[in-house]
């Protein structure tokens, strides 16, 4: 079984169990490795963090398919937990959706979501969103299902209709997206616990995702509480980006003010520890395994 096969299967098993998957959005491969090491069950390669890390720009439909795919690929290669992908609107029409699904499956993602916003999109917790007619994402979901090579490459529908209309419309749309083939459902930006409860009541047997954005529309809710409310995935799209930007700024301010990073060292990982973390010992061992001395000894045998 290849790594990609294993990751898809693992993610599906997790999604259809009664646990809740703690899924961290990582700004890059290093962030993903840190998140896995610290206990994240899965990683999400998503637009807010990719726009921030790659472009230093807001999540407003500026990071394109190529940038998003490459970010996800780097994260997949750096981790051994499942990686789910934010595929935004699929980046165009049904032909684009087909290429998007095939490409994400090819790089080893465990699945992806497609949303019903108009392009250029906005972060789900920003104001002034607009959504396409329901038929648009229905067709994209059907296309995505037909395009995937493996049934365990999971397709999630996302609707942003709660902000544009109301929760009832968001639930009604999600029912249609599920009927079109969505394996999982994500209703973006519910306003309170009552709305989170109603979402579960509408989809009692469907894996649901909740989105915890600091300063967003949905109240920050503990993992266990979300599990009790019936959610199977909780995603943190902004936390690592905000923490990193905060720390980076503090560090540079300290350096500029004091002329050194010495007073900040207690808040840093050390040189040796970091090198171990990113696998220097394994890389060095790999190089040593094939060094000239070892190979010359083997050649002597091969040529005898």
């Amino acid at each position: 079984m290849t790594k990609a096969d294993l990751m898809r299967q693992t993610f599906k098993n997790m999604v259809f169990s009664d646990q809740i998957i703690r899924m961290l959005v990582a700004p890059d491969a290093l962030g993903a490795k840190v998140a896995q090491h610290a206990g994240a069950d899965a990683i999400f390669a998503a637009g807010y963090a990719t726009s921030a890390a790659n472009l230093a720009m807001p999540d407003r439909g500026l990071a394109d398919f190529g940038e998003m795919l490459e970010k996800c690929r780097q994260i997949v290669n750096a981790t051994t937990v499942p990686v789910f992908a934010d595929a935004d609107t699929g980046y165009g029409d049904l032909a684009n959706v087909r290429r998007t699904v095939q490409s994400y499956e090819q790089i080893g993602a465990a699945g992806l979501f497609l949303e019903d916003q108009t392009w250029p999109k906005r972060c789900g917790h920003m104001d002034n969103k607009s959504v396409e007619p329901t038929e648009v994402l229905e067709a994209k979901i059907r296309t995505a299902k037909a395009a995937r090579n493996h049934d365990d490459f999971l397709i999630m529908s996302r609707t942003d209709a709660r902000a544009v209309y109301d929760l009832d419309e968001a639930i009604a749309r999600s029912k249609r997206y599920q009927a079109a083939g969505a394996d999982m459902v994500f209703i973006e930006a519910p306003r309170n616990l009552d709305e989170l409860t109603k979402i579960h009541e509408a989809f009692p047997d469907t894996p649901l995702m909740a989105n915890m954005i600091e300063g967003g529309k949905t109240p920050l809710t503990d993992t266990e509480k979300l599990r009790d409310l019936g959610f199977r995935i909780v995603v943190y799209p902004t936390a690592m980006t905000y923490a990193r930007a905060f720390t980076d700024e503090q560090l540079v301010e300290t350096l500029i003010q004091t002329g050194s990073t010495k007073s900040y060292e207690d808040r840093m990982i050390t040189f040796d520890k970091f090198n171990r973390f990113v696998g220097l010992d394994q890389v060095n061992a790999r190089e040593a395994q094939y060094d000239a001395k070892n190979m010359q000894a083997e050649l002597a045998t091969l040529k005898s």
Partner: protein
Amino acid sequence: MTHFYPAFGSGLTLHQLHDSSATGLFLSGSLTAETLLGIRDAGLLAASEYAAHLRRMRLQTNLPLIADLQSGFGNPMNTYYTAQEFERSGANILLISDQKSPAHTQGAPAITSDADFLGKIHAALDARDNPDTQIWGLMESLPTQGIESACDKLNWLDRLPISAIAIAHWTLPQLQALANTPHHKPLIATWRFDTPLIDGIDGWLDTGYLEDHAALNIRETLNTMPLTATSKEAF
């Protein structure tokens, strides 16, 4: 049965090949460099650039793809991580050359030591996630090291767990001599239009026949376009 592996570097050529009866297709590093960089020199191409192209081409064909691992893009450690990247980018076969790195496209390339080549072959073998992925060793040493050295190399390559041995830059007597050298692995020779299909060679690897002809056709077609000195001056 003799196998034939057409080479391509562009989506245009792949599009013509996707329903062919070829045993597999060779995504040549030289032709990829020409497509992506405008220069037919594989040695200028980064592994990451090649891998991204490979992933896109992989989505367009179900035929087995031979990836050009060149000389591993560095030392055996680099070969390990590059082989891993090419396999997950969709390669079915990884072709590893005995050239020195960087593996420039040339008729008589500089050849690395046997120890370095062996290390790179082991690295490619160890990097595989899928046991069905094949490693082929490519000998390019005939122009610089001659037939005796090539027979010696064929002997020890034949004892490794690779799937085939490929031979480039040969003369017909050299190729026949290698084919007559006792061996167990399939022998693959680079193919030229005037190559007689000699006994003992199990497969033929094209290195750019189709794209060379496409270039000639483009040049001829270019002459039919209304490009004059006047039109250039107007711009």
